[in-house]
């Protein structure tokens, strides 16, 4: 039992590596205003399943990476609730990258699905 568990964990981790970035970019592309980490996590929570249902703390490092790659813009605003919140907004480069990622994702998903079904 435990060795299939380890395999599943490893597979999930590898699968999540790219898809989490894709989903975060998509959420921010759909948002009308800049969002902060907690809001993004809540939006994902409603839809999340599979590898995306992982711990929400995993989203924050990915957000940082996307913004250091200049796919996201970020700024900090003070909040009444506690520490200042870091808001993220998608950049034009991020939108362009997202379109390419979605194409790659669709192509991959179609072929993976058809191979699995056959």
């Amino acid at each position: 039992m435990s060795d299939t568990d380890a395999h599943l964990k490893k597979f999930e981790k590898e699968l999540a590596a790219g898809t989490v970035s894709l989903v975060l970019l998509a959420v921010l592309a759909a948002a009308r205003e800049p969002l902060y980490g907690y809001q993004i996590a809540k939006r994902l929570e409603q839809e999340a399943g599979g590898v995306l249902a992982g711990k929400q703390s995993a989203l924050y490092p990915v957000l940082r990476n996307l913004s250091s790659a200049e796919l996201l813009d970020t700024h900090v605003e003070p909040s009444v609730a506690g520490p200042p919140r870091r808001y993220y907004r998608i950049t034009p480069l991020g939108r362009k990258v997202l379109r390419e990622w979605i194409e790659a994702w669709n192509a991959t998903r179609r072929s993976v699905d058809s191979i699995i079904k056959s």
Partner: protein
Amino acid sequence: MHTTPSTIAEYLDQLRAALAGADPAMIQDALYDAEEHLRSELADNPQLSEADLLAKISSSYGAPEEVAEIYRNQEVTVTRALRPAPRRELSNNPIVRFFAVAGDPHAYAAMFYLLLSLATGIFYFTWVVTGVALSMAFALSLVGIPFLILFFGSVRMLSLLEGRIVEGMLGVRMPRRPPYPDRDLPLGKRIVAMFTDPRSWSSLFYMLMMLPLGVIYFVLLILSTVIPVALMVAPILQGFWHLPVAEIGDINFYAPAWTYPIEFVLGFLGLFLMLHVARGIGRMHGAIAKGLLVKIAA
């Protein structure tokens, strides 16, 4: 296993403990993210108490240990993907490393230090010899003791100055403040301490040594620069203007034409070798300076 934290501060403490030993910048990021998330969650659910909320957190945001694990894994991926490989790893090839010296600012700085060391060496040596001679001459007179004190003080200031030069040009970390003994000691004891401090004596020795060392460094540097340059220029002079390689009395010596490319290549390589020599001597001298001007005090 930790108990479930009941306050945000406790949660952050557990997270900090779980991340112990990791890169401080990463710890700061992780704590910042966690606090932002938890406080937002708290603001979003005002009906829940902090303790109830934190009990739920481990299934959504993650327990401190899980979060630490996620950040550690992420950090490994990020370092591998984002940071360029350190320069040292690029040049494992000995040939690349041989030529890479031309891009090392320390090599050129060391060259200038070696040139300068002739001048500073003469100055230090003269200063110390004059000082010692005058101290001996004055020893029996009234000004003997004050002069000796002044002289020792001047040597310590000079060694501080030399330390600044060494740090600036050779890149060896040297002290930035003079090594004064305890400020609380009375003046008399401080003066005695100056004479019993082995560093004063080793500094004197260093200043004396700087004359022969300066001469040797200077000659080595000039030779290792002039010989490669001569090797590179000689074929050109002989080829175009028929100037001999050497002239002894009335006899002119010429190198055969087939040696021209060899001479040129040897000269070219010699220039790089000179930079290596300068950097190597610079490192060695940095160690000597550190040993005599700083270390002995400890």
